[in-house]
């Protein structure tokens, strides 16, 4: 018995090493100078240039137009992450409320209209979606960045499942007290859904922050670049130079992963709850 326990820990620790090491190495390497990295390769030691590199990356005006800073990109990522998460929660709670708590003609039809969107990811219709954006003149706007990503019913599906598990007695009691649909929604359902909302918020923020393909297509104006989309620009610049700015590329990568990773680690319990409760 003791031996198996020991090997279990060995396997787990090896797993942890595989998951952790690349990012630790990336961070440590980002504190070295570019020439130093070019000479000695990736590093596991502290290079001592943390402050300079990260300050440069955050404040230096770079890109083709020489106007965008890492800080700008971070703000744009924040707008995308928050806007997407909030938008998703508002839209899906309202829609799920209508589907679960109302009796109306065509309810089944609307249900299927909404849930068909779960079948096809945005990636399979990127080109026509981009053309729609062009027609509506939404390229290089925050609206164009956020709203099309909302066209999927994942959130609605979670809230529908959750509302169905809410006891019927609550609505009966509320109606006896004379509560109408708005009052019931705001005073009973919203407070009751708080943990569910938190879980979905975390998942959706991470999803929004991490978007890549859509921002790449939607934004040609560097003022709208997000950090994750900026990764591509780093590489394009990187390919041509003599001694690539490995340190700055890695520093941007670390900055791009910091907020979502922190959120997942800190709100782990809600995050896992949201993921696993909403699977089917």
């Amino acid at each position, binding site marked *: 018995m003791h031996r*198996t*326990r020991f090997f*279990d*820990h060995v*396997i*787990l620790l090896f*797993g*942890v090493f595989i*998951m*952790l090491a*690349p*990012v630790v190495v990336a961070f440590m390497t980002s504190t070295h100078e570019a020439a130093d990295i*070019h000479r*000695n390769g*990736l590093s596991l030691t502290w290079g001592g240039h943390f402050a300079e590199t990260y300050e440069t990356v955050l404040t230096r005006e770079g890109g083709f137009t020489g106007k965008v800073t890492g800080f700008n990109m971070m703000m744009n990522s924040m707008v995308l992450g928050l806007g997407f998460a909030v938008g998703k929660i508002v*839209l*899906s709670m309202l*829609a799920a409320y*209508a589907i*679960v*708590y*109302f009796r*109306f003609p065509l309810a089944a039809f609307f249900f299927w209209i*909404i849930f068909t969107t779960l*079948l*096809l*990811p945005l990636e*399979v*219709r*990127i080109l026509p979606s981009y053309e*729609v954006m062009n027609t509506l003149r939404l390229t290089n706007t925050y609206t164009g960045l956020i709203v*099309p990503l*909302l*066209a999927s*019913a994942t959130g609605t599906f979670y809230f529908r499942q959750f509302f*169905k598990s809410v006891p019927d007695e609550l*609505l009966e009691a509320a109606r006896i007290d004379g509560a109408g*649909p708005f009052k019931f929604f705001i005073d009973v359902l919203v407070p009751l859904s708080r943990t569910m909302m938190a879980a979905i918020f975390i998942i959706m923020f991470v999803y929004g*922050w991490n978007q*890549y*393909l859509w921002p*790449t*297509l939607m934004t040609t104006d560097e003022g709208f670049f997000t950090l*994750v989309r900026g*990764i*591509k620009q780093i*590489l394009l610049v990187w*390919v041509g130079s003599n001694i690539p700015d*490995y340190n700055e*590329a*890695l520093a941007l990568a670390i900055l*791009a*992963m910091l907020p*979502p*990773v922190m959120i*997942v*680690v800190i709100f782990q319990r809600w995050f*896992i709850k949201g*993921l*696993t409760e909403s699977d089917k």
Partner: protein
Amino acid sequence: MAAKRVQFSSPFLPYLFLAPQLAIIFVFFYWPSIQAIQSSFYLEDPFGFGATFVGMSNYTDVLKSSEYLGIARFTAIFTALVTFFALSIGLLLAVKADGVIRGNSAYKTLLIWVYAIAPPVAGLIGMMFFDQHIGPIVELARWFGWDIKVGLDYFDTAFAMIVVSVWKQIPYNFIFFLSGLQGIPVSVREAAAIDCRSGLRRFWTVILPLLAPTAFFLLIINVTYALFDTFGIIDVMVKDKAANNPITLVYKVYMDGFRGNDLGGSSAQSVILMIIVFVLTVFQFRLIERRVHYN
């Protein structure tokens, strides 16, 4: 699940609540989807002077092209390998973490956080690890006489893409397998422990069948991940030089649509992908769910 016993009835309120979501879905889901299907039957003039109806010829061109079939083959192999390794490593770690009572939550935290890293960011870190000059994995492989050249050698690039894609997906599978395992009642485990002394056999005959719903769900999720979400990893790793590098079907849609300006061809490819995803989903709901025993 049955509908609520009591419901509101109002002539317009439910439509008001549904309106925002429906509006967005119509404009950004149905409109482009229908457009994709429509333009897959047309040959678009590159200068924007209208389009000619060409029937199925975009489809036959795509399906006859040896380049497309090569990419389809790579996509199938890539998807199979990524799914297999991400699932099996995730399951292994979950089983071990489930067996270890103390340290369970520490392992959980340490193993799931990579989930939050965006695919292109993972791709960038992967690029560094597989870099010709500074990459430790390249150095390690040289030890064994393997000279890895990511971006130049087709096989090596594919290898690096698979490693990074698996790495990124392990945490997701780990979370689901672990919560699936922890959902198995203690009484079942005890009964299994009495009936079956060998841990490995117990796992195969008792635990794994109970995990089947989770595993099948994850199978579909992982296939979808490998098909679509690896776009960022691939885009970063091939650095816009798709010609000699392995790419997946989604990447080809993007290349033909945005670089090649081949609207009809790209749309036909989109529709083929839609059909693949649709079949996968139906497969999940119909075939698999019927065979898997819940409870």
